[in-house]
C-alpha cells in the first residue's frame, strides 16, 4: 500500500550546528503505516537525511588536526534553552576598595619571602618564623607617654587582638552587603549563631541530657493513664517514677501469724494506747535534759552577776527540782479506763 506523504521539493531543514540539531518541520504523517517496521524504516530514512544535513555543514567547517582526529570549532548554538541557575552578579566593591579607588591607591604585589636584616636570611612575611614577629621583641623602650603600670608586651598583644577583631567585623560587614545584593561568593556561607531575640541579646540556653529526658515524661503525665501506654520510640527508656514510692498491702492474704495487716494495725494501736507509760517516755533522758538546761541558765545568770559583784557563788541556794514525769501516769490510765 502506498503511503501518502507530503514532501517539500526543497529541503529547508532548520539546522543548528552548535547543538548538532536538525529539524524538519515539513514532514507530516497523515496516515500511519500499517506495520511498525515500515514506520521505523521511514523514521530512520528521515533521520538519516537530517543527520546528513548537519554533517554537511559540520564537515565543511575549518578543522585542525589533532591526535585523535580532526578537531572542529563549533559555532554557538542558535536554539535558546533556559538556564539552570541565575546569572551571577558581580561582587560589589568592599569599603576598602571604594576608598582606594577614591584616593587612587594602587595595590602592590608583595613577596612571600622578605630579607631579614637581623638574622641575615630570607624569612616569610607571615606565618611560622616570620620577619617582624611581635613575640620576638626582647626589649621595648619606655616612652614619656607611657603609663607606669602598663605592661607594653601585653599592650601590644591587646592592640593586635583589637586590630584582628576590627578586621573580622569589617569583613563580616562587607559580606553582609554582598549577601544583601545577592552576590555572596560561592564558598562563603553566613550563618546566624543565635535567634533574633527581642530585648536582651541572651543566647539560647542549652538543655542538659537529664532535662531533655524529663520533658517527655512531663508531657506523658497529661494522658489519662499517666503515659504508661504511650507509644515509645525505639530505644526510649520507661519514664522514671516521680514522688514517693507508696507500698500497699495485697488485697487478699491468708491469715495467721505472718499476717501483715494485723501487725500493722497492732503497732499503730500500741503506739497510741500504750499500757506502759515508760515505753513512751525515756525518763532518764528527760531528767538529764532538764538538769542541763537549768544549769546553763544558772551559769549565765551567775556570769552576769559575777561581772558586777564577785560574791561567792557557792553559797547560793539550789533551786528545788521537781519530777514532772509523775503526771503522765495517771493521765494514761485514765484514758485506758475510758475505753
Amino acid at each position, binding site marked *: 500500500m502506498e503511503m501518502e506523504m507530503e514532501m517539500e521539493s526543497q529541503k529547508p531543514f532548520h539546522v543548528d550546528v552548535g547543538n548538532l540539531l536538525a*529539524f524538519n518541520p515539513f514532514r507530516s504523517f497523515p496516515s500511519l503505516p500499517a506495520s511498525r517496521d515500515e514506520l521505523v524504516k521511514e523514521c530512520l530514512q528521515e533521520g538519516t537525511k537530517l543527520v546528513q544535513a548537519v554533517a554537511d555543514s559540520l564537515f565543511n567547517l575549518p578543522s585542525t588536526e589533532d591526535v585523535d582526529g580532526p578537531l*572542529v570549532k563549533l559555532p554557538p548554538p542558535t536554539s535558546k534553552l533556559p538556564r539552570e541557575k541565575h546569572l551571577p552578579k558581580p561582587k560589589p566593591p568592599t569599603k576598602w576598595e571604594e576608598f582606594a579607588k577614591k584616593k587612587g591607591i594602587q595595590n602592590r604585589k608583595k613577596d612571600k619571602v622578605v630579607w631579614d636584616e637581623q638574622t641575615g636570611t630570607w624569612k616569610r612575611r607571615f606565618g611560622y618564623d616570620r620577619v617582624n614577629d611581635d613575640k620576638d621583641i626582647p626589649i621595648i623602650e619606655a616612652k614619656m607617654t607611657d603609663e607606669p603600670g602598663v605592661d607594653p608586651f601585653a599592650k601590644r598583644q591587646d592592640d593586635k587582638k583589637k586590630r584582628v577583631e576590627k578586621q573580622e567585623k569589617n569583613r563580616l560587614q562587607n559580606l553582609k552587603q554582598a549577601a544583601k545584593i545577592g552576590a555572596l561568593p560561592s564558598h562563603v556561607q553566613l550563618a*546566624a549563631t543565635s535567634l533574633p531575640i527581642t530585648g536582651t541579646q541572651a543566647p539560647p540556653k542549652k538543655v542538659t541530657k537529664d532535662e531533655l529526658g524529663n520533658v517527655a515524661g512531663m508531657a506523658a503525665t497529661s494522658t489519662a493513664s499517666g503515659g504508661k501506654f504511650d507509644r515509645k520510640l525505639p530505644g526510649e527508656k520507661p519514664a522514671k517514677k516521680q514522688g514517693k514510692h507508696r507500698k500497699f498491702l495485697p488485697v487478699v492474704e491468708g491469715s495467721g501469724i505472718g499476717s501483715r495487716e494485723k501487725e500493722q494495725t497492732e503497732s499503730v494501736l500500741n503506739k497510741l494506747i500504750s499500757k506502759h507509760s515508760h515505753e513512751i517516755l525515756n525518763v532518764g533522758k528527760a531528767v538529764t535534759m532538764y538538769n542541763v538546761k537549768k544549769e546553763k541558765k544558772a551559769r549565765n545568770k551567775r556570769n552576769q552577776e559575777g561581772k558586777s559583784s564577785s560574791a561567792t557563788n557557792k553559797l547560793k541556794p539550789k533551786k528545788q527540782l521537781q519530777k514532772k514525769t509523775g503526771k503522765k501516769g495517771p493521765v494514761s490510765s485514765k484514758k485506758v479506763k475510758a475505753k
Partner: protein
Amino acid sequence: MMKIKTPRNGRVRRELEKRAPKLVETGKKTLILQGTKTSGTLNGVLSEIYHLKKGGAVRFTRKNDNIRPFESGGETSLEFFSLKTDCSIFVYGSHSKKRPNNLVIGRMYDHHVYDLVEVGVENFKSIESFTYDKKMAPRVGSKPFIAFVGEGFENVDELKHLKEVLLDLLRGEVVENINLAGLDRAYVCTAISSNKVYLTHCAIRLKKSGTVVPRMELVEVGPSMDLVVRRHRLPNEGLRKEAMRTAKDQPKKKIKNVSSDAIEGTIGKIYIPDQKVGDVALPNKAKGVKRERREAKKKEANERASKKQKEESE
C-alpha cells in the same frame, strides 16, 4: 549575630565553586527517580536513560511516595534532591491504572521547578533486543546528533514543549571544540501524530563518499519507545524571561561624555561651569587689607599723640 562559614577543605571549596552559577553554562545533570509504583517496562526505561547519560546523571532507586510533580505541594522533595545532587533536569517514573508507564520530565531553574512534561511510554524496546554489530556501539558520553521530524513539532503546543525538553535532556555537554572522529550516535524523534512521538537511538556508520563529507548511515541500537504526551506545564512568563537571559543580553551602560576615536583613542569631554569672579573667597589677605590696618594703627597712634599733647598743653 552572624558567623562566616568557609570550607576548611580544598576539595569542598572546589565542589562549591563547581556548583556556583556561571556566566556560560555547560551541561545540566539529570536526576532519575521513581514514584510509588513502577512497572517492568518503566524500570527498563529509567535504567536505559541512565545508561545513555552515564556521565551526567544520578539514579535513585528507592520509591518516593511524596513526590507529585503536578501538585503544588508535591515538589518540595524534588527541589531538595535537586539542590543536594545539583541536578537541573529530572526524570520521574511512575505507574498507575490511570496513567500507565508514566514519565514526567521536568526542568529546574535555581533548584525550583521550571516546567514539566508528562508522557506515557508505549512500545518500549530495550537495548538488548536490538541485534547489531557490536563494534559500532556508541561510546559513553559522546555528543549526539539530534533529529526532529514532523510538522507536529511546530504546530502543536505540547509537542513544541516536548521538543525543547527532549533537546535539553539528550544534548549532553555544551562544548566548543568537537572531534569529528568521535561522532557516533544520533537520536531521531518523529511526530507520528498530534500527540505521539517515536523516539529512537541509533549508531552512526560513516561511509566513504566522494566529497569531504562522509555518507551517514543510521543503525538502530539503543532503546526505542513511543511517547504519548499527557500533560504539560509551561513556565510562567516572568520566570521564563529571567531564565532565558544570557550574559550578552545585559544592556551595556553607556558612559556619558566619552567617545573613541580611531586616531586619538578614547576622548573625554569635560564641561567647566562659568567662574564667578566676585564671589570667590580670597585665600590669603590681600595687600589692601594690610595697608588698611597699618593706616588704622597709625591713625590711632596719631590720635593718642595729639591727646597727650593736648593734656600737656593743658
